[in-house]
């Protein structure tokens, strides 16, 4: 049996360290270059305590970091960060699925991610699937912006604030609607989709807020 607390024993890491690694993985996903000031801002800590923690993480072999230099996750560090992030997202979804509000679910997930063991996570995941909930992490769910040219699917989720949702749904991007990407984005550019027998141009920022289940 390999539960999270057991792994932690083996590598002697604290929940704070896990928070750091999780955040570094999030930066990596967003293609942001991590900086001490960024970490300090997101964790609400001073630059001094951030660099102190980074030194500790370096000692453990989780990050490569020289003072004032680049902060880089090691393979080991990234693996742990990924695990924690996966657990965080799963817990958040699970809780929201059973009616917990988003904010509350996020806070709970921040605490629970450090104690949830892999096998209990698996069991909960199976229970959620048999209840018919979609697995957002699965291969077939993509952000609209990540679709390839000509790929078709159905809109799963439109996230974002009230105004954004309003505008997107007013233009016909409602959940369950068939959609096809007719023109893919260049690095930062807009995309074009076919939906409801017409064509829409959508800016990259908005297209990132739409999740699509690929056919």
């Amino acid at each position, binding site marked *: 049996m390999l539960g999270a607390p057991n792994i932690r024993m083996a590598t002697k890491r604290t929940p704070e360290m896990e928070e750091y690694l999780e955040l570094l993985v999030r930066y990596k996903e967003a293609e942001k270059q991590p900086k001490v000031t960024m970490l300090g801002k997101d964790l609400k800590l001073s630059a001094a305590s951030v660099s102190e923690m980074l030194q500790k993480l370096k000692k453990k072999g989780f990050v490569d970091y020289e003072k004032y230099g680049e902060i880089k996750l090691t393979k080991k560090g990234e693996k742990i960060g990924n695990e924690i992030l996966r657990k965080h997202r799963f817990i958040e979804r699970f809780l929201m699925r059973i009616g917990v509000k988003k904010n509350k679910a996020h806070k709970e997930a921040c605490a629970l991610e450090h104690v949830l063991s892999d096998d209990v996570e698996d069991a909960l995941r199976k229970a959620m699937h048999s209840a018919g909930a979609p697995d957002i992490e699965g291969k077939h769910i993509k952000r609209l912006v990540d679709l390839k040219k000509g790929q078709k699917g159905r809109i799963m989720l439109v996230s974002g604030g009230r105004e954004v949702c309003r505008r997107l749904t007013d233009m016909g991007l409602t959940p369950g609607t068939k959609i096809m990407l007719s*023109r893919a984005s*260049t690095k*930062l550019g807009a995309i074009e989709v076919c939906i409801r027998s017409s064509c829409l141009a959508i800016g990259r920022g908005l297209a990132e807020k739409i999740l699509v289940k690929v056919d």
Partner: protein
Amino acid sequence: MKLRIALAGNANVGKSSLFNYLTDLHQHVGNWPGKTVEKIEGVLDFKGVKMNIVDLPGIYSLSTFSLEELISRDYISKEKPDVVINVVDASVLERNLFFSLQLLELGAPVVIALNMVDAAREKGMGVNAKKLSALLGVPVIPIVATTGDGVGKLMRAVINTSKKKQKPSSISYQKQMEADVSQVKKEIKGLKMDYPSRWIAIKLLEDDGNVLELVKEQRPKAIEKIQKIRKGMEKRCGQKGSVAVSSERYSAAERIALECITLRDVKVPLRQKLDALLLHKYVGYVFLLAVAGIVFFSIFSVGDILSGYLMESLEGAKALARTSAGEGVLQEILVGGVLEGVLAGIAIALPYLIPFYILLAILEDSGYLARMAFLMDAIMHKIGLHGKAFIPIILAYGCNVPGCVGCKILETQRARLLTAFIVTLVPCAAVSVVIMGLVATYVGLEWALFLYALNLAVILILGRIGCKALPGEPVGLIMEMPSYKVPMPKNIFMQAWRELHSFVFMAFPIIIGATFLIKIIEVMGWLSPISDALSPITVGWLGLPAIVGITLIFGILRKELALIMLAALLGTGVFSEVLTPVQMITFAIVTMFYVPCAATIAVLNKEHGWKVAVGISAFEIVFAIVLAGIVSRILSTYFFLA
């Protein structure tokens, strides 16, 4: 009695074509009371029945996302036009019906004009108008607005509907949603509202802030219960209220559309081939640059010819007026001030504006304008705007005035304001005259290029700051990509005429007023006291000769006047004899930024109100002086060392 008719529908459905067909030259442009959105009205006499027609803005929904949506919603529900003609594009039926369903919910007496049936047929689609009419419970008349096919029949249906005065029944949704609607209806029973109760109930389920406030005013107690019903619905659907209701409405639209679309034999339309080229990630940009270049070039070549011709013929008129008015201070002010002002307006602004309005209308009507916005989206994001903002900005390099007018293609007030601000920073042709005539000629071309680069940097930095400083979120691009169309000359000229008409009425009084004021200052001999008063800034901070104060005042009228006056007052056109290189560069920087010209201020005032016009002008005066002073100090050391 006149029938009051409103035209409503999505953008790009041929609403303007129908409006132009119906009203011809009997049109009137104004603003919606207290708003900066244009109100276009016209009159029609159809077989003895007089009608007053209002062309509502092209919108996709009746929520309150944009000013246009709010205006349309208020007009339909409060002014209660006798008939609302809902123009619908037959080839994009589903999206269009989403809007039609909202009109029906609003209880408007709707007649549907099923437009572009010819284009739909070409696409391999037919729409069964009879069936659509039966499903919606309102008359549906197929028309082709550009040729006028079916318009007579449409107007007969309009007159019939106006006589009946019966409210249409709205489409019912799925059972559970209907149950929620009637529950909310119970809560708001007996309230006095401009809107039908079913519509209010639906908007409350959508969590529409505006409607929520209205109900709160009259019955604060009901709010809690209503929120509870909404939350119940949200939980059931697993979506936010607005998304749940829109989904429901769209699925109703889809259902109706599927029942009415008769044949479907989809062909690969021309647009796909064109788009493959025009939206290509490299070729597309080459084409875009070419189009921008052509537009630019033709505005200026046509503008130059027109301007020169007009100047010449107006000079004659001026001389004639002068001799007939005689000598004297009052004559000097009246003739000089008023004539110079009219001259500035007619001979400077109009020649560039007329080709601009025509070309803009062609680009818009053909569908290429939307493609330009698509291509430029990524770049415009850098300054917190989206693709559509590219169009006014590129036009501003010719003249800031059309640039400012062009800001109205953006959706939100915030984006319009930010774009207008950036537009006023762009060096127009007149500023280029100063840069080229002074800096490039006497200091060196590399310094002229340096000034353009400096300008670009300022635009990027101030754009970013403006984006952060303005309240509200930047909105992303979302727009329908219209089909390509051959532009209709009639539509283009009508649109250009309307724009020109409103410019003349708005800007001319201000241009004339400004000229008048400067003339008074000149005649009264206040010019040198003013330049003395300005000398701490011009001489002390900027290190320029004191007379520059006078030239800068004239530059407000037309920026190239600053240079012309400078030559006149210095007594030589060879600026290197009287000015150092640093002084010339400093002078050019001040001219580039210091204040939008009178015509631009006039348009800012028209589009955004006087507060914005004054605010932008004041900011730019301070900014230009501070920047030019700093650059002058840095350059002094540089030239001293060199």
